[in-house]
């Protein structure tokens, strides 16, 4: 899990701006109900932005899978542990580029496109939520600093 997060963020964080220094990302899982990797990536994105570390874009992650006869996003623990296939996508919303695609189960290649596009939609939704949170917080801080 840690290596996935690392390889997801390495190309996005502008490490050239921070020579001779190390950025540690600590992820503490308090409880989980499925979608741990996607939550870790989304949390790391927010934390890096909160720390003021320069990144080229947000990294938004979402899971999607095929349950019964339909594709669905954000599977919970029960859905994950049953016989469904699940893929985790991490995407840079501005360019639409996928920086992480991870799947451990079997999925028929015909269904892959639908699942991937659905996960992409999910990432865009996550991006809106993350962006709104960051902007609200920045406005809040700016107001408090100006007062």
């Amino acid at each position, binding site marked *: 899990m840690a290596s996935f997060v690392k390889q997801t963020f390495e190309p996005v964080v502008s490490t050239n701006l921070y020579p001779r220094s190390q950025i*540690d990302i*600590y992820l*503490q899982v*308090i*409880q989980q*109900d499925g979608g741990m990797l996607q939550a870790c990536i989304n949390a790391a994105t927010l934390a890096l932005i909160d720390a003021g570390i320069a990144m080229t874009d947000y990294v938004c992650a979402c899971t999607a899978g095929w349950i019964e006869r339909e594709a669905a996003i954000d599977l919970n623990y029960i859905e994950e542990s049953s016989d469904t296939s699940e893929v985790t996508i991490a995407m840079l919303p501005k360019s639409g580029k996928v920086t992480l695609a991870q799947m451990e189960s079997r999925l028929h290649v015909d269904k892959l496109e639908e699942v991937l596009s659905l996960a992409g939609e999910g990432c865009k939704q996550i991006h809106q939520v993350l962006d709104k949170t960051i902007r609200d917080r920045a406005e809040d801080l700016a107001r408090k600093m100006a007062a």
Partner: protein
Amino acid sequence: MPGLISPAERDYILKGIECNIRADGRQRADYREVTLETGVISQTSGSARVRIAGGTDVLVSVKAEIGPVQVDPETGDGADKGQIVCSVECAPSASQQFEGRGADDLNNELTQMMTRFLSNSTSNPSVSSTASAGAGGINLSKLCIIPGQQCWILFVDALVLDYGGNLVDAVFMGARAAIYDTRIPKTEVQDLGDGQFEFEVLDDAEDTEFVEGRENMPICVTLNKIGARHIVDASPLEELCTEARLVVAVNRSGELCGQQKGHDGGIEPSLLLEMIQFGKTTGQTLIKQLDARLQEEADADLAKRQRGEPVHKLGFFAQ
């Protein structure tokens, strides 16, 4: 965060404590403001988050699981008792000194302390009314499901999220609050005859039991000896100036449930007695206040549920 302290800073703190004025304006016997909330983790049997103003942040969770009884090979004790398994972990992000394996020693020390104070049973038969409860106050016999076979095991896990001094007190306050909040499902035991038993865990979320003896759980008061005086609730810089540290575990009735001395310095016997006495009275006051707030929170939650309103926990959104 720093592991070093300059002689000037050390002198400042020392002289201040002699005059009963600490670096942040408190007196020697003053605690910082404590914020506490229970029921913050939904997938646990009980949980609590304790924050001490100044930075200490501890999350304690209790998970009740069913497992085999543990019988002591020498005394044969334990066949009809449940177990409490404690563990403390300091997150690497809590402080710079906890990076990598830096927190290992502290984790071990706190885990051993919690285990000793909470789950050891007294082997003294003259303690009649609390014979089935150990120093931890919790009635372990009530946690047994089938004697000799299955029992409830309470896993108490404390996670230190942020370090601002006085970890021990925060961990024990959190543990007490988490156990207060813990609900254990009821079990139905069927006697199949022939010494065979079968049990079923009742799945009703409303029909659960509290941990018996939870009011008798101790909390700890940490007293730091600096110079010739002692203080409670030390900040990180004050902890660096500490010559000797005494942790006193006391329960609601004022009984001493354990103590531990730390650091390299020595404590004169007269001061030791004074510190223990002080720890005892402070601890009792703390327990009273803690219990009052826990009861208030529990009553408010119950009232909300009865009105059909959802109970929202602030959790990590609490300022």
